[in-house]
């Protein structure tokens, strides 16, 4: 009978690997039992019949096949136990390159949860939502100041959507001026979203090989320019961690030929108070609030990817725009914040309503806490931490470039030749030491890349411990490579087979299993 089988199973698994952190938490569907409930609904079963009577049988389903049925204590226990199977920045060192896994202040979440924000319907009349709209206006102003740009839209849900918005603005601007260019230049070190966004925005990608020294050379770019090139999309610092030294010449060259500079601001954590994209000559920049501005990554999202532009592109920004209307009759002093939908040149809407507001609250809270001085200090400390790791590890994990690097460093190694130990093996072995691995095999141009971004919020002790661990793994890889190749050992699971997952995809639970 179902229940005892299940129970048997649980006991058996417990017997097999006796450990309270045994990670085979059953699927929620396997913990289900007919008729169980985790909430008490008003109206109850009776109302179900009445509702079906109202709607008519032909419109209604009689069942939700396989839907779970559990009590509240079971549900809470299920997810709390699942949570214990994760690493997280709050608990482990998480130097994931290009992801800026910095500390997420607890206050951010408390502020976002304030009833005045959490309970605010997006269609609330603006006069009753002045605090929220003002927060957005202040956020736009702060990001403009930080990035050195003229206007900001907070609409994009993430960096990739910011890219789409930016590229569509370039296209709209060109259409407005009658000519449409078809190409966008992207360095071979670019993040995957850059080319993907170009395709979505209808542009052809021209790949620019990064120069011998790991950065773009103005001369090379000039060589690629033509009247059909709409823009260059570049991440600065680039994904090697190098600040593009010729960025200003490149911007000039682009502008000369009527093309624009799109700056991918995902690495903004290196630039706060160090160099403003606007001053570099960028026409457009997107900023990932879930990186530089401390909103949580949430296991993959949500984030927010505001896009900032120079004055000439302002009319093309997505709508709605935030505007302050002169004092209306209602007697508010100093006018009232509202949304402007009447934007003839706008690329249009990117998503419903006004952006990922909850993330904006968190990022604004962070900006207030850090202040202009604090933000500048953050980038400097982030750069120092990365430089320190690079320096201390240079003997066995040399930098992929001789150039100075910024908030992250990309290291390589000779272990595959020396003992057949791959970068993946190193990454998996790091798990045994309670460290989340760096980004690996990216950028693609670096052999067996280890892309390390410690961020400014990690202590020196943590860095020292990480360095010691990397050295130890290098030694292990020489002395007994098998230990490293078979890693992880200390977790509840051994290495997970991602190949089979893709070969015979099982993408959902079914009763048949």
């Amino acid at each position, binding site marked *: 009978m179902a229940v005892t089988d299940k129970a048997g199973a649980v006991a058996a698994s417990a017997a097999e690997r006796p450990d309270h952190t045994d990670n*085979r938490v059953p*699927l*929620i569907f396997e913990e289900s039992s007919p008729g*169980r409930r985790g*909430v008490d609904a008003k109206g109850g079963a009776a109302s179900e019949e*009445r*509702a079906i009577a109202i*709607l008519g049988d032909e419109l*209604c389903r009689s069942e939700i096949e396989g839907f779970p*049925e559990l009590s509240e204590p079971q549900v809470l226990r299920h*997810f709390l136990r699942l949570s214990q199977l*994760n690493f*997280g920045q*709050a608990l482990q060192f*998480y130097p*994931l390159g290009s992801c800026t896994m910095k500390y997420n202040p607890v*206050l951010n979440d408390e*502020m976002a949860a304030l009833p005045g924000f959490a309970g605010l*319907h997006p269609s*609330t*009349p603006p006069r009753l939502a*002045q*605090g929220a709209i003002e927060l957005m206006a202040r956020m736009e102003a702060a990001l403009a100041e930080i990035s*050195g740009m003229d206007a900001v839209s907070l609409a994009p*849900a*993430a*960096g990739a959507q910011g890219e789409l918005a930016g590229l*569509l603005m370039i296209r709209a601007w060109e259409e407005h001026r009658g000519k449409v260019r078809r190409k966008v230049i992207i360095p071979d070190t670019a993040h*995957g979203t850059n080319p*993907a966004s170009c*395709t*979505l925005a209808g542009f052809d990608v021209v790949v620019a090989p990064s120069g011998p020294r790991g950065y773009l050379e103005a001369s090379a770019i000039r060589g690629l320019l033509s009247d059909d090139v709409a823009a260059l999309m570049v991440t600065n610092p680039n994904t090697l961690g190098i600040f593009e*030294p010729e960025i200003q010449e490149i911007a000039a060259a682009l502008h000369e030929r009527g093309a624009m500079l799109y700056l991918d601001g995902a690495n903004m954590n290196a630039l706060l108070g*160090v*160099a403003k994209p606007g001053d570099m000559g960028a026409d457009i920049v997107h900023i990932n609030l879930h990186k530089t501005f401390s909103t949580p990554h*949430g*296991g993959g*999202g949500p984030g927010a990817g505001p896009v900032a532009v120079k004055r000439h592109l302002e009319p093309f920004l997505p709508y709605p725009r935030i505007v302050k209307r002169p004092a209306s009759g209602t007697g508010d002093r100093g006018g009232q914040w509202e949304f402007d939908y009447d934007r003839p040149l706008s*690329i249009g809407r*990117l*998503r*419903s309503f006004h*952006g990922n*507001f909850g993330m904006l609250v968190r990022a604004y809270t962070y*900006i207030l806490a850090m202040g*202009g001085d604090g*933000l*500048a200090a953050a980038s*400097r400390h982030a750069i120092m931490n990365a430089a*320190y790791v690079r320096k201390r590890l240079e003997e066995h994990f040399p930098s992929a470039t001789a150039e100075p690097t910024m908030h992250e460093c990309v290291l390589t190694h000779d272990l595959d030749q020396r003992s057949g130990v791959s970068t993946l093996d190193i990454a998996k072995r790091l*798990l045994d030491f309670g460290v989340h691995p760096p980004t690996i095999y990216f950028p693609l141009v670096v052999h067996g890349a280890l892309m390390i971004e410690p961020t*400014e*919020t990690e*202590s*020196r002790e943590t860095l020292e411990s990480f360095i010691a661990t990397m050295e130890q793994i290098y030694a292990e890889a020489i002395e007994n490579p098998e230990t490293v190749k078979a890693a992880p050992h200390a977790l509840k*699971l051994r290495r*997970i*087979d991602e190949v089979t*997952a893709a070969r015979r*995809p099982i993408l959902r639970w079914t009763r048949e299993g």
Partner: protein
Amino acid sequence: MRFIPHTEADVAAMLQTLGVAHIDDLIAHVPENLRNSAAIKLAAGRTEAEVAAEVSALAAGNRGAAGFISFLGGGYYRHYVPAAVRAITARAEFATSYTPYQPEVSQGTTQAIFEFQTLIAQLTGLDVANASMYDGASAAAEAILMAHRVLPKRHVVAISRALWPDYRATIRTYLSALGTLKLVEVPLESASGMIDLSALEGLANDELLCTVTGYPNAFGVIEPLGQIADMTHRAGALAIAVTAEPLALGLLKPPGALGADIAVGEGQSFGMPLQFGGPGLGFIAGRTAHVRQMPGRLVGQTRDSAGRRAYCLTLATREQHIRRERATSNICTNHSLCALAATAYLSLMGRQGLRELAARNVELAHQAQKALEGAGMRRRFSGQYFNEFVVAVDNPEAMLEVAEKHGVLAGLALDRDYPDLGGALLISVTEMNTPGEIERLCDVLAGGR
């Protein structure tokens, strides 16, 4: 600085190792002119107490967040979020982890996503769902692009005019750059508030790529999705169903069962606060045959080297970090933590709880509509509805202002987006509304006329 651990001694020692005298020497290679103009002119950092006070003051500035009786809906819905959902999403292990690229230390996230994919598939009556999209509107746009990858030779996209204006606008934006696709808006049948089937019939030919229908639609009306899907299939095209109030799927026939090939929507109703419109949760579900054309992340079941069941990201060759310009979408960061909230919410509601909650929404909404009818406010459309409906009124804006003065946010005026309807008010009723509040609504609106 409370978030930056280094002491002066730490900095001194580290700089010494780096062989420089000052921390700014580390950025000396950044062009001087850039550094000189880089200062950020914002107020200096503040204590946590000061920050909390300032942000709380802004929150308090949103009078509409509390103290009003609300009937606002139209894409975002007022539902009760059980406290346990917050306790779960607040877990640092979930909130501060990145995309689960290292499955061995991400089983919490990957298993929860696998459960989410299953729940969405169950609700939509389709084979597979992905790990989440940004929101319902962008998910709808991505669904059309997905359909286009399935049927590359076709180019006409038939969108019901009764799809939410935000969704239609977003779709227009996403498709604007792809000259290939032609957007056609299918008119409504003015009496029922449903799509005009005869008009749709006119589009049902071999140019038709897909039909896009709200289920329920922007007027709360339950479209004849089965008929629409049949018509669509007869033309060899794909039927896309879009749901902004997924609670309806607890009671209504699932899109998949009615023939929809792709079902997308907004998941905010499932455990996410209103928070002024975001972050919510986009979902997309489809048929196994089309899974390789799906956008976004997918989690699959697999095993570890010891043969134990485990979960990891899979079919990544569709995605931007592998496929780059040929990826199925540019999406990278998605709405994973919102998907977790939905998974926790749906697990708490359970089969019975979800159906009863949906039922209560239906009951209250119809109760309200009848009451308004009694108070002389005609229902604008005849089509059956779930938890929101449209009433015909002469001057909606004026009415809303009067109601607001009486402490009621009575609904949304549809005039801006549907001027041709002539004075229409969208009223949404959920379990958050009491019978007493419904009475009050009638009084103020009746008075308002």
